[in-house]
């Protein structure tokens, strides 16, 4: 598989002594190449990941509605998303190329596939965990089926859904680093280039570190969202 052309290839011959000697981490290189290499890669990585999680959430939501409403369909949907999850990511990327080419679409199909299992399972388990007496009280109070779902079941499944969203987001950010075997985008791209450049350590650590920082930041933001959206879960009995 070919690599896309990297933005700037580090030059061992003309950098600082740290860069020339391929030191463990050269801040000079990071400073010099933030704007042309790292920052664009970070932005692309966010775009790839957000798109995958949003699409994955939409698909998992529809599947969960179907699996929740028609219980018989839950096992096949579950097995299907299990199956997708078990395909090694490297293999899945390669398998899709003949179908969808060296495109963002290929990467997104693979990334979305890995979010489905976690999001589907968490959402459907969250919906099932809504206590029967709560649903009975809602129906007995004169909620329609749709009102019961939107006002009672879905909000009560939110903690489980958000927990799944955190896992899906972090794993998507991690898996997206191998996108460059298909397209030259994301934080994996500088890493792939550095591996080809006689394993240029600084670039690997910088891009890898950014991927870790991005995952932690995304997780932190989702924790904040969780607190804001589910205030009842924090107020246990005094």
């Amino acid at each position, binding site marked *: 598989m070919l690599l896309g052309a990297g933005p700037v290839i580090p030059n061992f011959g003309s950098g600082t002594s740290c860069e020339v000697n391929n030191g463990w981490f050269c801040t000079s290189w990071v400073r010099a190449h933030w704007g042309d290499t790292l920052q664009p890669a970070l932005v692309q990585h966010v775009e790839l990941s957000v798109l995958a999680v949003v699409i994955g959430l939409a698909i998992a939501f529809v599947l969960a509605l179907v699996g929740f409403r028609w219980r018989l369909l839950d096992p096949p949907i579950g097995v299907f998303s299990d199956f997708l999850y078990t395909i090694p990511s490297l293999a899945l990327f390669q398998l899709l190329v003949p179908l969808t080419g060296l495109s963002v679409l290929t990467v997104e199909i693979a990334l979305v596939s890995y979010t489905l299992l976690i999001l589907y399972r968490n959402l459907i388990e969250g919906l099932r965990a809504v206590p029967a007496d709560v649903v009975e009280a809602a129906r007995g109070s004169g909620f329609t089926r749709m009102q019961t779902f939107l006002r009672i079941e879905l909000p009560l499944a939110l903690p489980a859904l958000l927990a799944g969203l955190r896992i899906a987001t972090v794993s998507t950010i991690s898996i997206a680093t191998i996108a460059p075997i298909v397209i030259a985008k994301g934080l994996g791209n500088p890493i792939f280039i550095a591996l080809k450049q006689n394993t240029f350590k600084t670039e690997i650590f910088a891009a890898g570190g950014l991927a870790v920082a991005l995952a932690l930041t995304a997780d932190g933001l989702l924790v904040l969202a969780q607190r804001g959206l589910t205030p009842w879960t924090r*107020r246990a009995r005094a």
Partner: protein
Amino acid sequence: MPGQAAELVFDEATKQYEGREEAAVDRLSLTVPAGEICVLVGPSGGGKTTALKLVNRLISLTSGDIRIDGISILEQDVVELRRSIGYVIQQVGLFPHMTVEANIGTVPRLYGRSKSWIHARSQELLELVGLDPSYAKRYPAQLSGGERQRVGLARALAGNPPLMLMDEPFAAIDPIVRARLQDEFLRLHEEVRKTVVFVTHDIDEAIKVGDRIAILRPGGRLAQYDTPAAILDHPVDDFVAQFVGADRALKALALRTLVDVVLGPPADGPRIARTASVRDAVSKLIETRADSLAVTDDDGKIVGSVWLEKLV
């Protein structure tokens, strides 16, 4: 929103589940006059909860009819029907993600009432069920079992329904709090005068809260429907006699207070208030081994005396 109290009529109401030989509720016919508390009681398998859920159509009738103020429940839109009936269940079923105020405002919100209206109504109802208005902002997880059931009661009352269905509302609550909730429920009923159908498996609770008691036997057939006093004095058959218990004569004593008794001349002895039940007076006689008791009025003045022959 609906108003006052409604008359409820079961007319040969039957629920037969497919594949079962015995009916869950078998041709149940009884009339609950507007504003009265009817208790459905019986052993498990007697179909009392099924009978209750037939009324708000959480379970559908197989045959027969149920009418509220003369209108068949089958002729009404099921969602509208349920909104016009207060519903209280044993596990309360408060919505955990909503504050107490939002829980109480459930039905008014379905009717499109404004936030300020709901706020005022929930404050009023919290007071009515004996909770501090500051509870409005709490979540159900922050309440005790008894407090939750009070909120459940307030939620059921919020739409001002002419009919309330209560399915073992106090069964999961410890005995001391249960007795207090029963007392408060009766006081509250004096105030709001809704028609109430109340399911319990506890005959003592049935005697205490019911204006009338319907005893169901296994197979969902009505064994007897009458006032508590009539059922205790004249059980129609062995099943009813057995169900109300060998101590039914004592239970009957709990239904009368010393106000209902012709007192003897004032005399000294262990004191008992005139508002006490006859059962309590008998208990006091046994406990103190006295020949007679001195009956006192609200000010503690002795107004008469009672002894065993006077009481039974």
